[in-house]
Structures are given as C-alpha cells and as structure tokens.
C-alpha cells in the first residue's frame, strides 16, 4: 500500500456522526462556500492540492442489486479525503497550530471528537480513523501545490512577455529592461522541482535506496578506475530522481 505519490500524501479519514448532525454539518459546509474567507487559513497553509468532505447518510450507502444486503447502521459517516504536501505529522500539526477553530468547526458533530488542542488526542483521533490508500496516483509527483500554482503564473508571464517583447521591433536594451521586470515578477516562483524528501520507511523503499546508494558508489568507483559493472538496477517505481546520466 502507499499513501504517497511523490510529493503528495493521500489521507482518508472516516468518522461517525449522529444522523441528526448530518444536517448541521452539511449546513456548515454550505456556509463555508458562501463565505470563502473562512478557508483563508487553509489557503495560506498552501499544503493542499485538493481536499473534500463527503457525508454519507446511514441509509445512503450505494445499493445496487436486490441480493445485496442493505446496510443497517446507527450512525452516518463523514469521509475526509485530502491530497497534501509534506509529512503526515507536518500536515496534522499545521492544522492544529494554525487553524484549530476551523478544524473544530468541521468535525464538531463527530462522535467523541476530542477538539484539536491539545495535540496528542487529536493525532490519535485522526490516526485511528484513517484508512490506508492502496493505490495512489498523482499526475505530477515532482510538484507540490505551490509548484503548480507558481507554474501557472510562470506560463502566463512568459506568454505575456512574448507578446510584448518577442518581436523584432524591440531593441536589446528595451528587451533587457523588460526581461529584468519579468524576473522580478517571477523571482519567487522559479524554485527547482526535484523528488520529495524521504518520508517512507517501508522496507521496499529502504531496500531501493540502499541499492541505489550501492549503484552510485559503484559508478563513482568506475569513473576513477573502470571495471566491469556487476550491479543491475531493478526496474520499477521509486521516489528518487535519476538524471540523464545517473
């Protein structure tokens, strides 16, 4: 299983809520949409690609066939899916430190929700109610939400610049002045994108890292004193980057 796809982490949390709280929660979520300022904290944290809350009424589990047994539940359920950047700890911590009131608002109706401060009971609450993702896909494992947003700005700026200064009628000096302005505009959007810091301690990942280290050591040695290569790299996905020469 893997909750990680490059720089993105998939969190799934399922918690029970009393059937009558479904209406309260749905209302809260609707209000949040009308007054987006409530989400300022989340936006400023800038850690999330996409996240959603889903409320499944106790009689709303999909029933597709007469032979399928109907669910008979006491509680309704709130599902929370998040695609975020950074480690689990960083994410849960930043919610608690930065937007504790927001969290309490969304999870208030849930059975035995402990509130987001102090930290450990909240950590435990999320951890015990979290379900592992078996298969997780990101279209851009090398990019965080910040990178995607910065990239949009870069593309727009480049196209705009091209319209204004791409022609032959622009002198080199004029070009240079505008180019500097372009760089000023994008100065904090040009960070390099490379693989994520190591989070996974899964045995398979540790093994892959070990093999990669050994391979690289052999390559370094081979550069100094060429010798027949004996280490073969197993094909397959890992979290590391390989350069063209690597």
């Amino acid at each position, binding site marked *: 299983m893997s909750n990680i796809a490059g720089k993105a982490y998939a969190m799934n949390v399922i918690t029970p809520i009393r059937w009558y709280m479904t209406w309260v929660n749905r209302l809260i979520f609707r209000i949040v949409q009308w007054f987006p300022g409530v989400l*300022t*904290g989340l936006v*400023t944290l800038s850690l999330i690609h996409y996240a959603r809350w889903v409320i499944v009424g106790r009689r709303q589990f999909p029933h597709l066939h007469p032979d399928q047994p109907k669910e008979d539940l006491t509680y309704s359920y709130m599902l929370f899916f998040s695609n975020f*950047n950074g480690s689990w700890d960083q994410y849960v911590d930043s919610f608690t430190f930065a*937007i504790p009131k927001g969290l309490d608002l969304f999870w208030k109706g849930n059975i035995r929700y402990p509130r987001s401060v102090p930290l*450990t009971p909240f950590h435990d609450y999320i951890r015990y109610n979290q379900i592992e993702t078996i298969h997780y896909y990101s279209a851009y494992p090398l990019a965080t939400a910040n*990178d995607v947003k*910065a990239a949009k700005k870069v593309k727009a700026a480049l196209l705009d610049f091209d319209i204004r200064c791409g022609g032959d009628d622009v002198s080199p000096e004029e070009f240079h002045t505008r180019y500097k302005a372009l760089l*000023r505009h994008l*100065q904090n959007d040009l960070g390099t994108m490379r693989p994520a810091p190591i989070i996974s301690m899964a045995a398979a990942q540790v093994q892959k890292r070990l093999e990669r280290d050994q391979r690289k050591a052999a390559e370094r040695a081979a550069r100094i004193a060429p010798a027949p290569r004996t280490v073969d790299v197993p094909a397959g996905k890992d979290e590391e980057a390989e350069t063209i020469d690597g």
Partner: protein
Amino acid sequence: MTRQLDLFDIQGNVIRAYGRFSFPVARYVLLRIDDGAEGRRFVDAVTRRVTTSVDWGNAPGQVPKPKVAVNIAFTYAGLKALGLPRASLAGFPAEFVMGMKKRKDILGDDGPSAPEHWDPVWRGDQVHMLVTLNAQSPQDLEDGWRWLEDVTAARGGKVVILRGHRGPAGADDLPYQEAKAVYENGKPTPKEHFGYADGISDPVFEGMPGRTSQSVIGRGKQTDNGWEPLATGEFLLGHLDEAQEYPKAPQPFSLSKNGSFMVYRKLHENVGSFNALLDREAKAYPGGRELLAAKLVGRWRDNGAPLVDAPDQKSKLAWDERFGRASPQEQDRMLSGYTFDKDPHGARCPFAAHVRRINPRASLETTKGAFDTPGALANRRRILRRGLPYGEVTDPTRDDGEHGIVIMMVNASIERQFEFVQQQWINYGNDFFAGNDKEAILGNHSEELPSRMVLPVEPDSDDAPYFVRNIPRLVETRGGDYFFVPGMTALRMIAAGMVDPT
C-alpha cells in the same frame, strides 16, 4: 506568565551556552559501558560534579562559577547498558531509539556526509555516554580531563573512553573531540570558520533564568499581543508545551522531568569551497563580496547585523553607527529583536538564508490574520543551540583541514523540532515557495543536481534578482548521535539503579 523552574534539577548545558559565558575551550568525550553496575558507579561519580543551571556567585550560600562545567548525556544504547528497565526504555521516542546514523535518509546525510565518512569513534553502537567538559582556560581543561580519566580508570576497565575522534595533522584516534572558540588577536570571538558571528539568537522560554521582558523580543514567539516566551515544554520534558500537553517522555515521570533531548552533530566546514564560492559569485554579484556573504546567512559577517534591518552597505553603516552608541540591552535588541514583517519578498533577507530557514518567525503567515497566532507554524520548530567551533583554518583555500563546528541542539522532540527543520526547511524549500531549493550554508548540496539560491529584489526596483548557482556542499556531517540529557534527580536515580516504572 512567569513560573519558577527548579534550576538545581536541570543540567547547565540546557539553559546556558557555555561558550558565551567565558568557557571558550571544551572537550567532548564519548564512552562505552561494558558492565551495568560499573557504569552506574561511573554515572554516580560524574553526577556529583555535574554543573546545574543555577546562577553563579561568590556570596555565601551561592554556587561559585566552576572552572570546568561538566555535563553528561546518554544514547539509547547507553541507557540500555546501564540497566534501565524495559518499560522505561519502551517509552523513549522512536527516533531517539534508532539513533542519528540510522536516520540518515531523513536528515539528508548522504554523499560526503554519509556515516561511512564519519570519525571512526561513531562506528557501530559503541557510543553510550557523552561527557562534556567546558573550561575557562586550557589549564582548567587539562585538570578536568585528568579528573575524568581518573574516574574512568577507577571502573577497572569496564567503562571505556572511546578513541577515534579525528584531530589536526591527520590524527584519527583521539580520545576526545577538542573544541574551542575562534580567537582573534588573542581574544575568543563568537565566530565560526566561515567568518560569521554565531549563536546570536537563542530561544527564550518560560522560567528561563535571566530572562527580561526585553530579551524575549525576537527570541520568543510572535503573538497578537507582541512577543511572549515559548512554552517550557518545547525544551524541557515534564512541562507543558505549545500544544498544551506534556511532551512524549519515558516513564516514570521522575526519569524524564527536567530532562531533554540533545542532537550532537560534528559539522566539517569546507572553508576552501566557501571562499571559492564567494570569489566566483562576487565577481558577478552587484552588491559585492560582503553583502553576498551576508545574503547567504542573513547577517553581516563582521558584527552579525541582521540583513532585514541593514539590507545594503548604506543601511549597514547607519546600523553600525547606532550599534556603537547603544547600551548592551539595546545592542541585544538590535541583534535579536527583528522580524521579517517588512520583508515579504525576501529582498532584504533571502528565503534561503540561514537565519530565515531555521527560524522564519512569523513570515510563514503570508496572509495576515490567517492563522491562530502569527508564529503558529514556527513556534514548535525552535531549537536551543549549544556547542563550539573546533580546529583551526591554516589554509583558507583548502577544504581538507580539520575544522568546523560541533553543534549540540537541545529540544523536547528531536523529530518535531530538529529533524523537521533539517528535512523540510534546510534540505527542502516548499514551505518557502522555493520548490526543492535548499538552505545555503547547511543544505546537502550535490554536484549531480546542482543547487541554486535566489536573492530577490524589491518588486519596485530596477534590478533583476540574482541567482547564486552551483552551490557546493559547504558543510559535511562527520559524526553525531541523539542523546538524552537527564535532570539531576533522574541522574541520581539512574546511578542508583532505582529507575522503576512499575
């Protein structure tokens, strides 16, 4: 909110950076325990001489300032060797149990920083105890060293001072790590080998002695009501932390109370590469060599003036002039009491500068008022920094001398504080909207995937931002581990073999 801490119960190196209190020389000694009972007798003998956090003085009833400050700490392997019960051992945090070597992937200790290049003393699991001797003079240090040798010898060979520290002239079998302040004109300075004044700002937490309402500015946490001290539990176990709970700590309570965790790291400084980088980039950088050097760290080299208050030559001169006229308190304020509030673009102090990465203060709240408090994301990532430089630079064009710093970082949670800053803020840049761009000085830059650092300019200026390219690895890890620094009560219990979580 003031509180009284039991200073008699806290080891002195937690509260004080001895280097700044006229203890300019030190030896850091690593030991192995081969017999639990002998190990406990050793701990007992050392504990009687351990320096606590009390204020010193010569009046009757006061504790006089020692010639040698002695402190002791243990790895997980060491606590096990001393016979701590299994139930106590099981309560230590996972990263402490693993030890720093096994965490190399998380810390980015790869390539030249990998454990296979560390000083031989760190091989295997033999490091059990760390005894630090901080002395007022070299002679005092020798006296302290002889005392330690005697105490060890009395254990009949069952407690061993480990050899294998590297030293000058190619030595690699020394029985201690030598450390001393960098001297200029015969006087110790707070500088390190790249030429920067180090250890200027240290966090201030509740109950810290000597704290005034002034020193908390810049060193505490930024709230809507101004500066406040950080919660004690961020640095001392057994006290409430910023999340209003007790930090994770082993049982029984008296084992962990007033103790802390310490990360010891020996960091070699590639002085040659550093100077070559400055030489190379200063040719192209419009602001000149010293400003470029300042941009890498966030402070000017000569006197530590914060870039955010003195972003160019002109303002630096004005700052120096004010500094020269200022009282010691005012000087302290000028050095530590700054924020990044007026520098949202990083034009004064770049986002990849050292001081901004290890303590962003309130600057991560990019939309004012978005968070519960302005410093919400930085308050729980603070670290007390201790230690001294080691070695001397004989040839500033070379990397291969034996010189650097030994940094000892004290915090209540190694994983949440040190490891987080190391992994997410030093070797990575997403929280600063900088992709994978690393911190300039400490980042684990590699040749394969060359590092860059942007020096932004004000949006309304006419200049272009400057990119420092191909930053070489300036600092390499040469050794270290995670240690538990017990309080005095805990030390006595450990020595007596009376730790009992039943």
